[in-house]
């Protein structure tokens, strides 16, 4: 496979990791290092002035020389809120990559397509590298690509569900039509789900809950990295197409009960 390039940046792993839900910052850092991933997402929240006015040290645990740090707009319900968060992220950390995440409904956390497109149009003009988290909608994916997003990030299943590739058929259509990288985000629960996403043609996967909430996050990060790499190597090795009828692997001649073969 060709190397994964997003907005001119080459990634050597097709696994991206979200930094939420880890039991500690050290566990998070170890899992990221063990996975070899080249991009992580972070969120923005208010400083807790009573409990921890100095702030969460999370960002100091990530080295921007080694890894691309992508703030998300989680919590935003409208384009206006997402744009505000993107600008705050740029002001706080100098980060120009932004994962657009607009989830008006906290029950299902599915992304609002209209607000996402509106926000993308503004942020692309402001020079952000925009990675929009979307439902697996091929038409929306194309509209975002046309608006200048650097990739599209369709979901496999709702955030944090670990349900796997529930949107497979739509993802296949997105992959077949996309001219920007497709990062399957959200809902991947097992390494096999990530491998299947790469095998169906996705360029990359983003995993958070499945790794961070595992009993052994470092072990799970390694397992996801291996699964993604195995899928990539399998594709590079040129898999033979599936077929509907059997095709014997063993010779169909020379059976031992045959008496006269001619």
């Amino acid at each position: 496979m060709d190397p994964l390039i997003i907005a001119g940046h080459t990634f050597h792993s097709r696994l991206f990791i979200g930094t939420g839900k880890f039991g500690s910052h050290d566990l998070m850092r170890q899992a990221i290092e063990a996975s070899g991933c080249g991009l992580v997402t972070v969120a923005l929240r208010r400083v807790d002035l009573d409990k921890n006015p100095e702030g969460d040290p999370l960002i100091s645990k990530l080295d921007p020389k080694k890894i691309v740090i992508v703030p998300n707009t989680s919590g935003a319900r409208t384009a206006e809120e997402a744009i505000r968060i993107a600008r705050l992220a740029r002001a706080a950390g100098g980060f120009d990559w932004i994962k657009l995440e607009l989830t008006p409904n906290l029950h299902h956390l599915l992304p609002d397509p209209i607000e996402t497109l509106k926000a993308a149009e503004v942020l692309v003009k402001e020079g952000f590298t925009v990675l929009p988290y979307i439902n697996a909608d091929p038409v929306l994916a194309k509209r975002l690509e046309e608006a200048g997003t650097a990739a599209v990030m369709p979901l496999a299943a709702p955030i944090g569900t670990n349900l796997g590739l529930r949107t497979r058929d739509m993802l296949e259509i997105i992959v077949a039509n996309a001219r920007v990288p497709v990062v399957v985000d959200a809902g991947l629960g097992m390494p096999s789900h990530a491998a299947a996403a790469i095998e169906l043609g996705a360029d990359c996967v983003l995993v958070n809950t499945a790794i961070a909430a595992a009993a052994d996050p470092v072990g799970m990060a390694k397992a996801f990295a291996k699964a993604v790499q195995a899928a990539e190597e399998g594709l590079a090795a040129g898999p033979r197409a599936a077929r509907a009828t059997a095709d014997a692997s063993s010779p169909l001649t020379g059976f031992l009960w045959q008496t006269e073969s001619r």
Partner: protein
Amino acid sequence: MTVTVNGNTRPLGDAKTLAGLLAALNVKTSKKAVELNGQIIPSSAFATTPVTANDQIEIIQFVGGG
């Protein structure tokens, strides 16, 4: 004399500038973003930006997220 910081009312105290207020709140300013009345203030301007009663201030940080 109070200001609203991250949604809560706080005494302004002796703070005359954003930098003074942040110091009084024990906020470390590294990798934080600050909004004053809806406008993002670059950290280079904290020391020269005045704060006055009833200002609305947001102090934002990075946390773990997907």
